[in-house]
């Protein structure tokens, strides 16, 4: 009898210990995240991107200052909060990265292949101009309310296709975006997962990309976020600036409408 009581008490203590250990871990992570907000190395990417924006580049030696991100040639302020959008000159819905590539080809004279080269940096081995340009352009929308339109039929279509892609189950593991991002209050290991089917979740997630990733020492764009999600989904490699990547971005960006954009952010 005594032994059973002792055992039960020990079991309860062990359980309480585990719960405490987990609480301590979760609390520790929260503190770490708070500490990260102190200074954000993304500023280095923003500064480099601003320099690139104003530098004459490519075979035609022109700057980005005539590049129309949707609000008129050279207008950067607030542009990202309204992307993706339909661009009549390209007859295509484009996100920021795709539009930058478009300007590099049509204005600066790069080939499409050259313009799309190296979309993601790799620490000190290689730096990505696209990531720096994205950091600069997005920083000029900080505090601006997300306002992605769906007035053009192609914008509406991209949104609906993006929604469908979000639920597309495939690969060796039957995963879709929805596997991890369609319920609130869930975690993978200790990482909180945003519910992207709800306004609050979509807003919190979308408005905090791009982000400086401490674990990678790199600033990562939304194109990278999708690429790396699909890698973990066991899908093949998402092609940079593909129509599918833009449609999915359209779905997620429009779901974030109304929230103040707050990036480049910093994440673990």
């Amino acid at each position, binding site marked *: 009898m005594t032994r059973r009581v002792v055992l039960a008490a020990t079991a309860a203590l062990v359980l309480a210990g585990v719960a405490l250990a987990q609480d301590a871990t979760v609390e520790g992570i929260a503190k770490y995240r708070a500490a990260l907000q102190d200074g954000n190395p993304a500023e280095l990417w923003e500064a480099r991107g601003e320099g690139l924006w104003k530098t004459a580049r490519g075979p035609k030696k022109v700057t980005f200052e005539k590049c129309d991100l949707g609000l008129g040639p050279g207008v950067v302020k607030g542009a990202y909060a309204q992307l993706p959008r339909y661009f009549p000159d390209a007859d295509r819905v484009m996100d920021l990265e795709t539009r930058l590539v478009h300007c590099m080809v049509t204005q600066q004279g790069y080939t499409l292949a050259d313009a799309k080269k190296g979309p993601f940096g790799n620490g000190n081995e290689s730096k990505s101009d696209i990531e720096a340009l994205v950091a600069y352009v997005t920083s000029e929308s900080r505090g601006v309310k997300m306002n992605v339109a769906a007035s053009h*039929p192609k914008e509406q279509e991209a949104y609906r296709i993006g929604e*469908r892609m979000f639920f597309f189950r495939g690969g060796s593991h039957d995963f879709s975006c929805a596997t991890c991002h369609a319920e609130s209050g869930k975690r993978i290991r200790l990482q909180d997962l945003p519910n992207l089917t709800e306004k609050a979740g979509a807003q919190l997630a979308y408005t905090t990309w791009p982000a400086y990733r401490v674990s990678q020492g790199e600033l990562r764009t939304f194109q990278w976020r999708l690429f790396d999600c*699909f890698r973990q989904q066991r899908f*093949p490699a998402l092609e940079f600036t593909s129509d599918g990547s833009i449609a999915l971005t359209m779905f997620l960006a429009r779901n974030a409408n109304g929230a103040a954009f707050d990036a480049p952010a910093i994440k673990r």
Partner: protein
Amino acid sequence: MKTIISVVTLAAGTAMLLSGCASPPSDAEINARATAMLKASFAARGQAGLDRLDQDETQKACTTYAGKVPGKDVTDRIEKVNFESIKWPADGKYLGNWQNGEKIAQEGRGKQFSDDPAGPVGGNCYACHQVAPQEVSYGTIGPSLYQFAKVRGYGPDIQKYAYGKIWNADAYSACSNMPRFGHSNILSEQQVKDVTALLMDPNSPVNK
């Protein structure tokens, strides 16, 4: 006469409006375009070929009902097809080695294009489930499996259920978030047995 002209003008105007502003594509049309666009938006890399985007019947059905609850006739059919495809162990033994099962439950690598095709391949159970209580870094997408057999019993029926569930989760719960580890050749039969032992073995920390 004037009325007739107005009617004709109105009809012509309506026709122009219709041709200039076609009705939006149907859901079926959007779904077809989404599948085509998806396939054009990926490139084969490493061990992840484009065939990863070819859906089997279960994936197709679960995509169709994504975000909504499918009818019971649909879920019954998905569960039946998947249950009938389960390959039960030839020797009739469901339990392997729980210590190996713990390693498989911890291992997150496998099948990503960034992973070595030669392995290792794990089940990454802790990504979504609490399993053994010593591991505090667990996810919550799936239910806690702590004390799995202690609560359900250690008998052969529960052993078979645990093995079958790990082999093919859709056999018991249509459109489950859980991968079909045996069915989709993620884990070998021995690995499925080892993970089953992690849940079922009385000596496993799961049941302490």
